[in-house]
């Protein structure tokens, strides 16, 4: 068999499968919808996690703490404390933000300038902003650092600013794992849906399969259109899932932008990345093909011509 004949047969099988799907638009649409939703759900979960990470990305990685000094500690003493902190191993940066500067910054970014003007004196204390080295950022290291600062008589409160980020990142990790589980379960669902659809198709075309085998059609020849049908279901489902994701992003984006602006962020939702789309299409095609293959392998064997 020449290569062009080989190619022709595959193109014929592909077009034949496509034609069959197109002739039953309602049944095809329902199957595609099920596959599309099954693919879109884990991808949406993954998209949520990625966006949440980007949204918190600016400070999500850095671990730092704010050491609030008692009011009334002289500025010179505060400077000395900062220098002591800098000398301690495991600390990358220790920056003193004197009360006056803190007030300026707060006035600039918070939008509560008018409220501050109503206050008789500066309510803010001096703050030491401490960034530990990456090598000394474990929960235990941070705890010992916190105790070190708490022990100083000049210190009022030590706040681990990033604790919520650590928690948030842990929640995202849980969600990401949930997406993997959802992908596995729904992938099995896609396999079953495609397999069952192909099984019905095979039973519907039983007579045709018998005659084809009778005139010398090999198992591979008989199987081919069903495999292409499965592949097309996978591609169609992936396209649908993509549309669902983009539509969800489009609908959510305005309100997310508004929310982000309230937090002083310019964050906007990001659509599915190339990796996600690759996984969507690769997964859809792979599952469609595999589902069809399993079904065809099981059911075509039992159909033998009878005279």
């Amino acid at each position, binding site marked *: *068999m020449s290569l062009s*004949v080989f190619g022709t047969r595959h193109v014929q099988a592909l077009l034949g499968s496509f034609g069959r799907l197109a002739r039953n638009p309602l049944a095809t649409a329902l199957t595609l919808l099920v596959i599309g939703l099954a693919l879109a759900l884990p991808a949406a979960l993954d998209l949520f996690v990625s966006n949440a990470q980007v949204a918190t990305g600016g400070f999500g990685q850095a671990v730092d703490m704010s050491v609030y000094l008692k009011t009334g500690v002289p500025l010179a003493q505060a400077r000395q404390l900062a220098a002591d902190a800098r000398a301690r191993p495991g600390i990358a940066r220790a920056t003193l933000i004197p009360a006056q500067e803190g007030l300026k910054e707060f006035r600039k970014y918070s939008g509560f300038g008018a409220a501050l003007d109503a206050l008789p004196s500066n309510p803010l204390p001096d703050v030491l902003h401490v960034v530990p080295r990456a090598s000394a950022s474990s929960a235990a290291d941070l705890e010992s650092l916190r105790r070190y600062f708490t022990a100083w008589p000049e210190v009022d409160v030590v706040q681990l600013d990033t604790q919520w980020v650590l928690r948030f990142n842990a929640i995202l990790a849980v969600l990401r794992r949930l997406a993997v589980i959802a992908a596995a379960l729904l992938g099995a669902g896609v396999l079953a849906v495609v397999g069952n659809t192909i099984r019905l198709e095979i039973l519907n075309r039983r007579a045709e399969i018998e005659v084809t085998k009778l*005139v*010398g059609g*090999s198992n591979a*020849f008989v199987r081919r259109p069903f495999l292409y049908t499965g592949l097309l279901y996978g591609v169609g489902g992936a396209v649908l899932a993509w549309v669902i994701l983009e539509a969800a992003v489009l609908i959510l984006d305005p309100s997310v932008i508004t929310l982000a602006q309230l937090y002083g962020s310019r964050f906007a939702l990001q659509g599915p990345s190339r990796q996600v789309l690759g996984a969507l299409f690769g997964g859809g095609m792979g599952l469609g093909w595999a589902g069809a293959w399993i079904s065809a392998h099981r059911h075509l064997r039992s159909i033998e011509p009878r005279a």
Partner: protein
Amino acid sequence: MIQFERVSKRYPNGREALTHVSFHLASGEMAFLTGRSGAGKSTVLKLVALLERPTRGTVTVNGKSTGSLKARHIPAFRRQIGVVFQDHKLLVDRPVFDNVALPLVVAGAPLKEVDKRVRAALDQVGLLGKERMLPAELSVGEQQRVGIARAVVSKPPLIIADEPTGNLDPDLALEVMRLFRRFSDVGVTVLVATHDQHLVHELAKREIVLASGEIQDDGADSLPHVVATR
């Protein structure tokens, strides 16, 4: 072309359809397989087309023993046999052209070749110009001839037919049988199962008579009956 050696066939339900059947059909020969219903005619054809395998004995077709043929070689084996059925087994949702083209398509023939040979086969059975019609739009006789065109389109060295004239009126039946004889005249081996004695006599070809699963008359050495009766 076809060699049966002490072939017995017992179906799973216990019925013994053939008992020690032996006969030989030479390449290019044409023969009728006759006998009452249930005599084993269809079983002989099924064994030839490898729809069944013999329980005992050996069936050899075109030099290949069917008993030991591996499943993956069956498609290639079937491609060298054109099969015609009483109920013609056409694909009702496909036009005539597609039905006739099927054996060429499964064999991977180039499209140009398919087109040429389908037309040639339809021309042989007198159906040229009806390629785009559906089987249901044709008469019973025409449907049967589509089935014959499909059997001969890939020019197989062997054609077998199971009661190909069962649903036809006598004139059409004779026409179909003459078609088979024409294939035989150009060197194709033809084995036709029929219970129509009139046709057998008319065609003047070898007759293998089956009765209760055994060969009653091999018809090989004697002259065709027709010569004696005419």
